[in-house]
């Protein structure tokens, strides 16, 4: 039995989610290889990957068609690499992992388990269902097990001294049914939301986009990321990609500060795994109080500037 982890990278670095997926792979206790796919910068990424603890061999698929990764182009590559004898295929449950792995599953005629939060054994896995209100244990009956990994449930793999092998692999196919047109990426100096040590999130109580600066200033003082509830995103106070919750990012930082967030079950599903939760809310009875370690009942427009000053 062998495991293949599908790597993702951004700005020349493996993503935090990939490092968590490697940790999940190591927990399977099988030989683990990492597949790095990309354009020009993939060579440096593979070199970095070769030093990650737990990675036996790094496979490098480099080509112009992978400069912008489309699921339709990489699925044939992944399926052909898997056919060389891998029994387990893991990827971060990122927007790319969620887009690609189901296509690989259908091509191999096997099922797939999404958002795995615990490895029980080589064929049995846990994953949250119903907005985290239940934890299901599933046994995979297929010869190849495909899993996306909930990165917040696994620590990030670290680097070590010894360089593993890097092997070039071929594959992939330029799909004719899809064409990359463009992208708009949010440029931020702050840490990535899903792997930040501290997250400060604002909700409907922030009342406006301008007021969100109060949340940002506290986040910056703590070196943390900024998050938002769905209500805040829907009201236009914060961009989509900052949404924390069942349908947004799942986070589990050391410290989560929820400001003006009532705590709908969909929001709690995205952050209740945080180590320490602080809620700042005017309503002492808000559902967020049920998961908060520290509840400060206060006007957030007074509390946030005071907090910024006290840090």
């Amino acid at each position: 039995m062998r495991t293949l982890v599908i790597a993702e990278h951004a700005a020349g670095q493996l993503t935090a989610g990939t490092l968590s997926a490697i940790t999940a792979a190591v927990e399977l206790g099988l030989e683990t290889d990492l597949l790095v796919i990309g354009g020009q910068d993939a060579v440096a990424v593979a070199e970095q990957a070769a030093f990650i603890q737990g990675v036996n061999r790094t496979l490098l698929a480099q080509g112009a068609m992978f400069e912008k990764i489309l699921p339709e182009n990489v699925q044939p590559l992944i399926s052909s690499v898997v056919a060389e004898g891998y029994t387990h295929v893991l990827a971060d449950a990122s927007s790319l992992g969620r887009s690609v792995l189901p296509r690989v599953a259908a091509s191999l005629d096997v099922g797939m388990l999404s958002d795995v939060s615990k490895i029980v054994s080589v064929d049995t896995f846990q994953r949250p269902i119903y907005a985290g209100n239940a934890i299901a244990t599933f046994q995979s009956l297929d010869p190849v097990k495909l899993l996306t990994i909930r990165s917040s449930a696994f620590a990030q793999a670290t680097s070590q001294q010894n360089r593993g092998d890097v092997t070039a692999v071929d594959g992939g196919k330029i799909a004719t049914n899809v064409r990359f047109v463009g992208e708009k990426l949010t440029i931020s100096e702050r840490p990535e939301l899903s792997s930040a040590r501290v997250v400060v999130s604002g909700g409907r109580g922030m009342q406006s986009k301008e007021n969100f600066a109060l949340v940002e200033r506290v986040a910056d003082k703590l070196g943390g990321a900024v998050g938002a509830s769905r209500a805040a995103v829907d009201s236009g106070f914060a961009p989509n990609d900052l949404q924390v919750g069942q349908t947004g990012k799942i986070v589990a930082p050391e410290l989560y500060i929820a400001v003006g967030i009532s705590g709908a079950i969909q929001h709690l599903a995205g952050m209740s795994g945080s180590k320490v939760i602080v809620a700042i809310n005017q309503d002492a009875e808000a559902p967020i109080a049920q998961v908060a370690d520290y509840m400060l009942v206060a006007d957030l427009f007074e509390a946030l500037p005071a907090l910024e000053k006290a840090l």
Partner: protein
Amino acid sequence: MKVLVAVKRAIDPNVKVRVKTDGSDVDLNGVKMSLNPFCEIAVEEAIRLKEKGVVSEVVVVSVGTSAAQEQLRTALALGADRALLVETSTLLEPLNVAKYLSKVIDQEKPQLILFGKQAIDQENNQTGQMVAQLIGSGQATFASAISYADGNWLVEREVDGGSQTVELSVPAVVTFDLRLNEPRYASLPNIMKAKKKPLEILAADSLDASVKEHTRLVEVAPPPVRKAGIKVGSVSELVEKLKNVSGVI
């Protein structure tokens, strides 16, 4: 042009599910069921495309038990033209559902196939992508805007760290995120009219899809409960606790 929208009957989003005491599954006995919210968005978008004159027919399809007729009627009341139910109570895993749907697509030959990005019960987020693979189509997951130009579908999608635009040839598979639109309410006259719209039931066995069991549910448990927290009286008390008790700052 025809659009096919795949929909799922799921727990109502306002209901908090409970786990059965024997840990065998969640307890859906007597629980309110609805059209999965993401599927509702897909239905709404299909109807808007029809209202804009981009598509001429909206067909909704579900794979599930006879009870899913209720959700198909809901979609008809919102404005879909006709409905199909692939009736089965077993092996409702994403790949199997995708295989049934691809058989329906073979028969219906739609130019666009729409999905919600995930259902709020099992949260798999797989079926649309699997259908795209099975029928050899391009896909756009997490879509936040869709338009039709020069024979292709132009779709903006939400990705980690921003948004991306892709162009898909026909037939295309698109799965929708929440922010695409605000679904309408069905009016009473439309609910009455929906009762007369065609709803065809297909026996799953008749579709000749090679379905089998891929995953087996072993156990369902409630999530771990967090320890009760404390109220703090001031910002300075909060900072003191975070520093000295929790040690996180």
